[in-house]
């Protein structure tokens, strides 16, 4: 560095590398923002509830006790959130319902992201088929989500796996379009051109240079898809085409409780509230992640 002392002067502009923030430090300062902490905390709580349901649920979710039917919520009566028309414990069913929501949400996010990324990258790269493929994706996106999922499930039959498959189909276009748009923008960036100049092949450039830079938007999109998937699963189940009536899912509880809306409002209130809160905090989480995942905005944190 002997010949470059003045460089240190301009280095002050962008810290010249002096501040190498650690990943842990970034995470900690990100969580200090209340919105991020709430979004992340509530989401973690729902995931934990779903995973630990068998351990913490006071009753079996399918245990029927006709004598205790339609009991209101109470802190002392043994049923924290009350019981439904068959005397099943709402709290236990809610915990198992969280499990279904998390499984559906996570599976749909992972599957639609993988497929969407592949389609988006290919669409952005292939001159010949790219446009054609993306127009098909646009066509798929034109179908209303629920109607499209209904049609798919009608064809496949209703089960947890089929709900996941149907919702994956519905949400692939969202990811594909985001990745496609990023790819088109990134392809003209000089660092991509530089990789090509070094001799990097198409696959290498796409995977090592373009893909990592699309992940930020995809993760953000993923949190929204998680939220949509939870709502869609509940809606489909409510309409009677999603999960079989016996299962404990928020949608099923809502569907079964609607006949008792006036006599036992607690049956529908709690799953409704759970869906509302989960979706809300997923959206908050998505906004927070967007700020976190852009390495250029990290300095601002």
């Amino acid at each position: 560095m002997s010949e470059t002392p003045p460089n240190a002067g301009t280095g002050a502009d962008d810290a010249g590398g002096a501040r190498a923030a650690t990943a842990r430090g970034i995470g900690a300062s990100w969580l200090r923002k209340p919105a991020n902490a709430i979004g992340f905390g509530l989401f973690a709580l729902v995931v934990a509830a779903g995973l630990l349901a068998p351990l913490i649920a006071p009753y079996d979710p399918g245990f029927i006790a006709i004598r205790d039917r339609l009991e209101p919520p109470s802190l002392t009566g043994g049923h924290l959130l009350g019981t439904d028309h068959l005397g099943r414990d709402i709290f236990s069913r809610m915990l198992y319902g969280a499990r279904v929501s998390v499984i559906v949400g996570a599976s749909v996010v992972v599957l639609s992201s993988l497929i969407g990324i592949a389609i988006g990258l290919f669409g952005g790269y292939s001159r010949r088929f790219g446009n054609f493929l993306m127009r098909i994706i646009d066509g798929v996106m034109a179908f209303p989500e629920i109607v499209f999922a209904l049609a798919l499930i009608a064809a496949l039959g209703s089960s947890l796996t089929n709900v996941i498959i149907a919702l994956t189909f519905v949400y692939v276009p969202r990811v594909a379009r985001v990745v496609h748009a990023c790819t088109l923008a990134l392809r003209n960036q000089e660092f991509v051109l530089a990789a090509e100049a070094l001799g990097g092949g198409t696959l290498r450039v796409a995977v090592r240079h373009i893909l990592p830079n699309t992940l930020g938007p995809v993760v953000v999109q993923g949190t929204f898809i998680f939220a949509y998937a939870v709502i869609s699963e509940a809606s489909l189940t409510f309409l009677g085409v999603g999960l079989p009536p016996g299962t404990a899912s928020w949608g099923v509880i809502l569907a079964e409780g609607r006949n008792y809306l006036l006599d036992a409002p607690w049956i529908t209130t709690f799953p409704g509230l759970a869906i509302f809160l989960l979706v809300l905090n997923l959206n908050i989480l998505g906004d927070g992640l967007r700020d976190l995942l852009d390495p250029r905005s990290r300095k601002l944190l």
Partner: protein
Amino acid sequence: MTAALEVRDLRVRFDTDTGPLDAVRGVSFSIAKGELLALVGESGSGKSVTALSIPQLLPPVRVSHPGGSIRVGGDEMIGASESVLRGVRGGRVGMIFQEPMTSLNPLQTIERQIGETLRLHQGLSGRALRDRVVELLDLVRLDAPRERLDSYPHQLSGGQRQRVMIAIAVANDPDLLIADEPTTALDVTIQAQILELVRDLRTRLGMAVLLITHDLTIVRRIADRVCVMHNGEIVEEGETAALFADPQHSYTRHLLASEPAGRPPARDPGAPMVIEASDVAVHFPIRKGILRRQVGAIKAVDGVSIAIRKGQTVGVVGESGSGKSTLGLALLRLRDSRGRIAFLGRPLNDLPPRDIHALRRQMQIVFQDPYSSLSPRMTVRQIVSEGLDIHGIGRPGDERRARVAELLHEVRLDPAMMDRYPHEFSGGQRQRISIARVLALKPDFVVLDEPTSALDLSIQAQIVELLRELQARHGLSYMFISHDLRVVRALCDEVIVMRKGTVVEQGSAAAIFEDAQHPYTRALIGASFDIVPSPPPNGDGRGATA
């Protein structure tokens, strides 16, 4: 008589998350009526912050003035009420910014945008308003002003847009015009015209001008007096001629010494030919309609021949949109082109992709913008060793790591920084990383696409020095693309002047600089060096350039 602007002991403090940052630390200067003062400094020196403080345009939440006073024609600006300031902004103080693309509203006509300030400050309307707008456009020498009233910014070229900006700035006969890097985004020949216009308006309207710039050529050409800023302070002040002749402060001397100097190595007509291309043409088809029928072509490069020998540098000069970058990409086979290209005697035109891949080791490129040419999600080590990975050079792990360290050392970066990300480096350091990435493959031929134009002057000189040194050590052949003739003169044996895709002049550097034949070349040279420019052909040039 009071000075048009009087700044006393100005301090500007930014509240950042890491604590207060003093961007301007006790700056004092004044400008008399009709005087043109240049505030010179590199990025981060506080010159723009000082300029924005004058009409109090810095965001008030995070900025405070711990001390100082700013008087415009005797009236204090610091602490003045918002209504007073609104009268000052665009009224007694006019401003021009660097980027004429973004300083104008893309959705409003020229007439509306110039008229707005007249309506606000003078209450003009109807016919009087329109007449005044035409008068102003005439004043800034926009040709055919009446026909331009209904134009939108995108229909004007960069130079024309800057003229419109100037018309807005001087619309209310300001006492003070603040020009913040007014020509940095413009091509050199247009730069000269805009500066000429500013100087002329200063005389005609009798206003004081505060010019913010990093370009010493501009300062030398038009400023009466100069203040040199460094780290938030004015380190030297003086009459332009005296300051350039006899700089006192070490920083000023450093700044003046960092103008690109030196000469390229001697021409060696016996050296082997590295790249030889004849009649290269790159045409982009224009397609229209549903069937995407080709209705014409943009001739980005049309019939250019170029030959570069081992260890020599050919400069390609031209304005933005002249096709010089496209020519570079075509030579590297990164763009499809017509015409014959031979590399080390081997024709490249019909090589299968596999052979092109092998050739990539020998032909490389360094880009202009050190901020977009490095992948933001890779560490410096990954970036520099990518070429090694692709071509399987050296064993992965320690051997490649050692090679990266060696390369970073060669471009004078601390190898200990190799695990950091690009955004932690300054512009000059990033450009060094780009050069290390290219050197990793030990190429024979490197295209340098404006490698210094995004950098501060003193950093520019260091990069030029580094490039020269690497050329001598490794026998590199460069194609040096630039619009800055001073750098070209310091590096190139041969020069090609391009305009609109074609060559207007081509020859040895000595011949071009001493005895340019084409009027366009002469205009370029005049704009870059201290020669009063002769009127260049075709004025601003119509239409937006890329």
